[in-house]
């Protein structure tokens, strides 16, 4: 369970997150949606500890993230833009992360799950295509079989087959009762596995609750139509 309590974040004068209160349920898929620049990535980075909140508190399994870093061993994170040392080979990145994590996990473990990267291992990071980078991020997130998955537009750069593979993995993780937080702009593709929806607009929560309830509340049959109605 991830609980977010009165979270505020501003960059200088720009208020990016404004009093965000929510919780992400264990064993469920929570989909984070909102227009460009609404604060989705910022919220996710706050949970990861990459961005420091201006005020408020975030707890992952009852541990406050501000005073701790160990909670990240339970989290697999797929960033919107993966950052890797550009001069390393793909296989070096796997080894590096493995090494930093004290080698808990098998070296070949991350290389074919969810994507088969065996043919890319000897390529330098800077020479990777955008989609392959995204795949590398995904594989690193899945490598340690974490309890929590946090994915920021994970399918954005992927080809349709790869995107499908990824969604199948998410579905599988859901069946294994993992906690999943996913941001996406493609509402139709997240609809069939979303349990909860967080809809954020200009840093404020516009809706926060189960998908089924959202549909009832807006009296619409699809997520897309429900969101459109909320935006009116």
């Amino acid at each position: 369970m991830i609980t977010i309590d009165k979270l505020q974040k501003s960059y200088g004068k720009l208020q990016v997150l404004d009093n965000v209160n929510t919780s992400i349920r264990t064993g469920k898929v929570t989909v984070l949606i909102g227009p460009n620049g609404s604060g989705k990535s910022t919220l996710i980075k706050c949970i990861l500890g990459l961005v420091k909140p201006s005020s408020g508190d975030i707890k992952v399994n009852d541990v406050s993230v501000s005073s701790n870093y160990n909670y990240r061993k339970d989290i697999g994170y797929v960033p919107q833009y993966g950052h890797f040392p550009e001069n390393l080979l793909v296989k070096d990145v796997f080894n590096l992360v493995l090494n930093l994590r004290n080698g808990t996990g098998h070296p070949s473990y991350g290389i074919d799950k969810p994507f088969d990267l065996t043919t890319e291992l000897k390529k330098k990071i800077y020479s990777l295509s955008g989609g392959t980078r995204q795949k590398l991020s995904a594989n690193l997130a899945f490598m340690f079989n974490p309890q929590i998955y946090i994915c920021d537009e994970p399918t954005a750069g992927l080809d349709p087959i790869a995107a499908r593979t990824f969604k199948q993995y998410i579905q599988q993780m859901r069946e294994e009762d993992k906690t999943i937080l996913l941001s996406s702009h493609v509402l139709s593709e997240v609809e069939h596995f979303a349990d909860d929806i967080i809809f954020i607009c200009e840093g404020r929560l516009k809706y926060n609750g189960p998908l089924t309830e959202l549909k009832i509340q807006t009296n619409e049959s699809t997520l897309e139509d429900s969101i459109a109605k909320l935006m009116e």
Partner: protein
Amino acid sequence: MFKLINKITFYGIKDLLRSRWIIVYFIVLCMITEGMFRFSGHSLKALSGMVSVTIFLVPLISIIFATIYYYNSRNFIELMLTQPISRKSVYIGLVSGLSFSLSLCFIFAISIPVLWRFSMLSGYWNILFLLIFIGVMLTLTFICLAFWVSISNEDKGRGLGISLLLWLTMAVVYDGLVLMVVILFQDYPLEKPMIVLMFSNPIDLARVLILLKIDVSALLGYTGAVFKSFFSSNFAQITSLLSLVAWVLFPFYFSMKKFKKIDF
């Protein structure tokens, strides 16, 4: 935590040794030292030549190198911070990797030409050790200052500019200002203010400390006299050595605090 810091440190050293620039730094420094000994023909003269290099070149290279290194490591940093690793470990690992590499580079570049002429140096060993100590301290100070600048500025160009300005101020402009103070206030007793001014700039401190051992006449006139009487006590010498160490620790600590707060 220490194991992790070591890993990051070693990773950094491995990464740095692959970069051409650190090799270039080593070779250039080594050649300068060799040249000083070869052409001055006198150990003491060579050593005072090395003082200028240590006082000007070493801080400049350290601050530029460390600034560029930080910005180039940002991806690596971000990757580490998504893992169960504390910011403190990441910071200490990065700084120590860079510190080891640049310090060893300096120590070897100075020592190798000296070892050829082992006998020539008899009597000057204490100066050589002081020189190496000062060089290493300045290296560390300017690495930490570089980190402070680059952590505070997201933009690489801006960070590099500020680092250069900082070096220019401390290495060149500061002296001019001190001289102005001396001229403007020559009718007043200046001993204490001068000593305070000197302690507030590690480059000045380092220079005075070593020139007093080598060539007092280089510290001209009034200031020279002030420092000479001040540094004649053991207490003052130890205080200044400790101050050089403090000039490493404070920037190190403040950059770390900053590093813990910034957004990635």
